[in-house]
C-alpha cells in the first residue's frame, strides 16, 4: 500500500531499544556494595540519564543519582561509565546498545560515595572556595563610569569560563589519588579564570596562594582532566598557564618551579637536559646530599651521567639566541600558551589587555584599543 498524506500526519511512534546496564549500588550507612544489572526499554534517542530515569521510574525507585538540567549546563550528573567520568546527559546509548556492550555505571572517583551514584562534593566545593572565585577589582572608590572590556580581552579565559563544575576532571585526577589535599584541576582552572581576568586586581596574591604545597606544582601532568572534561576546559593547560604566569611574576620558590626553570637553563646552555644537576638545582644541595645513598645506587648503573664534559647539541647558540630574541615579543608568561581550537587568534588579540599588568591601558569609560593594534 502506498503512503498517503494522511499516514504522515501526527507523531510517528518512537522507535525503542532494549538497554542493559550494570550499576554499582552502594549504601554508606551499611557499607554494602553490589553490582546490579538492569534491562529496560528506552527510546532510541535515550542518553544514559534517560535510561537511569526509566530504571528509577519503572524498576527500582531507590536508585540514587543527581540530575537537573539534562542539557550539559548544570554539571549535576557526573558519574563513571566503564571507569570513565562522563556527564550522563551527554552519553548517547544507541551505539553502545548496537555494539552489544553492557556498560558498568559507578560513582565518580576521588570523592566519598554517599549512595549509589551520588558523591559527597563538599571537598570539591571547599577547594573551589579556596580559590576566592570572585572578582577582586583592587579599587575602593566607585568609578564615575563603568570599565569597559572588549571580547578580545576576555578571550584568554574563555575556556576556563566554560567550566560547569561537574567534577569529571577531579574524579580521575592521578595526583589527587595520592594527595587528597591537592587543589586539583577544577579549582586551579577556576583560579586561572580570575588570574587571567583583566578586571581582577589580585593576580599576585592569587598566584602566591595557588603556589602552596598542594597547589600548581602538585600536578603530575597525567592529562586525565583534559581527556575527561565534557566542556573542553582543558584544566591541565590552565595549570600550565598558572605556572608560566607565576614564574613570569617571579613567584618561583616551589621545587616544581625550580625544576621547570632548570630545563630552560639546560636548553639555553647545552641544549639537552643537564640531568645530573637537576636534583641539586631543584631540591637544593643539602637535600641532594641527603639523597647520596640513593644516587650512588643509580650511579653504579650508569643512571647518573657525569656532567663533564657536558653533552652539548651542535649549534646550541641558536637555541640561546632564540631565547633572547623572543624575550621582548610580548608572549611572556601565560600569553605564550597557544591552546585550543583558535590558537593564537585568541592570544594575539588579547595584547591590548589580557593579563592584569595591562589594565593601566584601559581607562574607565573609554573604548579599548581595537583588536590587533
Amino acid at each position, binding site marked *: 500500500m502506498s503512503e498517503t498524506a494522511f499516514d504522515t500526519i501526527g507523531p510517528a511512534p518512537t522507535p525503542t531499544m532494549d538497554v542493559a546496564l550494570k550499576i554499582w549500588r552502594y549504601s554508606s550507612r551499611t557499607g554494602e556494595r553490589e553490582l546490579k544489572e538492569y534491562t529496560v526499554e528506552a527510546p532510541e534517542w535515550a542518553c544514559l540519564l534517560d535510561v537511569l530515569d526509566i530504571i528509577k521510574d519503572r524498576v527500582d525507585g531507590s536508585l540514587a543519582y543527581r540530575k537537573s538540567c539534562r542539557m550539559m549546563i548544570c554539571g549535576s550528573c557526573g558519574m563513571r561509565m566503564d571507569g570513565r567520568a562522563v556527564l550522563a546527559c551527554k552519553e548517547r546509548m544507541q551505539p553502545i546498545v548496537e555494539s552489544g556492550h553492557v556498560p558498568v555505571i559507578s560513582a565518580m572517583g576521588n570523592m566519598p560515595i554517599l549512595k549509589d551514584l551520588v558523591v559527597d562534593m563538599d571537598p570539591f566545593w571547599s577547594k573551589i572556595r579556596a580559590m576566592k572565585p570572585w572578582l577582586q577589582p583592587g579599587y575602593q572608590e566607585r568609578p564615575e563610569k563603568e570599565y569597559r572590556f572588549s571580547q578580545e580581552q576576555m578571550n584568554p579565559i574563555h575556556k576556563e569560563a566554560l567550566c560547569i563544575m561537574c567534577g569529571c576532571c577531579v574524579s580521575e585526577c592521578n595526583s589527587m589519588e595520592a594527595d587528597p589535599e591537592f587543589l586539583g584541576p577544577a579549582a586551579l582552572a577556576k583560579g586561572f579564570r580570575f588570574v587571567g581576568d583583566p578586571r581582577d586586581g589580585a593576580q599576585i596574591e592569587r598566584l602566591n596562594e595557588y603556589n602552596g604545597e598542594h597547589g600548581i606544582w*602538585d600536578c603530575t601532568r597525567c592529562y586525565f582532566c583534559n581527556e575527561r572534561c565534557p566542556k573542553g576546559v582543558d584544566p591541565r593547560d590552565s595549570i600550565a598557564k598558572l605556572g608560566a604566569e607565576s614564574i613570569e611574576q617571579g613567584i618561583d620558590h616551589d621545587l616544581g618551579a625550580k625544576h621547570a626553570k632548570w630545563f630552560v637553563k639546560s636548553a639555553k646552555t647545552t641544549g639537552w637536559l643537564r640531568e645530573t644537576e637537576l636534583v641539586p638545582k631543584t631540591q637544593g644541595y643539602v637535600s641532594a646530599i641527603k639523597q647520596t645513598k640513593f644516587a650512588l645506587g643509580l650511579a653504579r648503573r650508569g*643512571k647518573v651521567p657525569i656532567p663533564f664534559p657536558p653533552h652539548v647539541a651542535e649549534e646550541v647558540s641558536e637555541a640561546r639566541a632564540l631565547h633572547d630574541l623572543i624575550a621582548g615579543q610580548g608572549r611572556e608568561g601565560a600569553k605564550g600558551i597557544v591552546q585550543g581550537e583558535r590558537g593564537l587568534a585568541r592570544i594575539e588579540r588579547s595584547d591590548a589587555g589580557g593579563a592584569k599588568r595591562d589594565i593601566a591601558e584601559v581607562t574607565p569609560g573609554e573604548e579599548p584599543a581595537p583588536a590587533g593594534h
Partner: protein
Amino acid sequence: MPRVAYYKGCLASLSAKELDTSTRALAPKLNLELADLERVTCCGAGDIHEAEPDYYLHLNARILAYAEETGADTLMTICNVCTLNLRQANWQLKNDERLLERVNQNLETVGVPAYSGNVEVKHLLWLIAEGEGYELLKQAAHKGLKGLRVAPFYGCQILRPSKLLGFENPDRPWSLEAIIEACGGEPIDYPAKIKCCGFPIIQAREEVALGELIQPIEQAYEAGADVIVTPCPLCHLSLDAWQSKLKDATGKDFQMPILHLSQLIGVAAGLEESELKFKRHVVSVKPMLEKLEV
C-alpha cells in the same frame, strides 16, 4: 627502506643509553633507516612549556625544522613526553598560519631553516603496532618470548590528550598488547596500565609521586607479571630506579624488572647484551633472562 628522522631525546642520550643502543640495533630489522639529528635540543619535557611556553614552542619548531631538512616525512620519537611536546607544537604550527609565520621569522633570524609543516611526529610504538611495521616486527621477533608474562605500561603522554595523540583509544589501548603477542609473550591486563608513573613530580613531590608509582608495579605484580614494558624512558626511570624508594616507604619489595619497548622486542629478536645493556638497570632482569634461557 623508509627513512625517518630520529629524535632520541635527553634520557636516551644520558641515563637511558640502553634505549638508544637497542633502538639503533633494532631499526634495520624493522626496515627503518634512522637519520640522526645533531643540532636539536631538548623538547622541554613539559617543563619549559610550563616555565616559558613561548620558548617551548620555538625550541620544538626548531626540532621540527631540522627534521624536515633531512627530507624525511616522519620524525620518530622513543619517549612519551617528547611525543606529546612535539605533536602539540606541530599541531599548533600547522593550524595557525600567523603563528607559523612569526615563529619562522624568529627561526630564520637566528639561522635556523623555516619549517613548512611537512613532518608528522610518530612514536616507534605506532610505527610497528600495525600495517607493514607489524609484519616486519613478527619476522624480526623470531626467537620469541616463550610465553613470558608481560605487563604493558603505557604511561600518560602517549595516550592523553587524545586530540593531540589520537593513535588509539586512550581508555582501551591495544598497541603494546599486539606487540607483546607478536613477540611471543603473554600480555597481562591490569587497570593502572594507562595511569601516571609519577615521574614529572618525582623531584618536587616525591611522596605524591610514589603514591602514583606503586599502583602499576603492585597491580602488575599481583597479576603475575614477569616484567613490565613501557614505551617511555621517563616511566622506565621512575618504575626501575625508584622501586627501592617504594621499598623504603612501604616495606614492599617487588623486584619487578622494567623493560624499554625496544629491549623487549630486542630480546625476541636476539639482540646482544652490548645492544640491550641490561646491566644499566637498577632492578635486575636476571630472573627474566633465566626464564627465557638466554
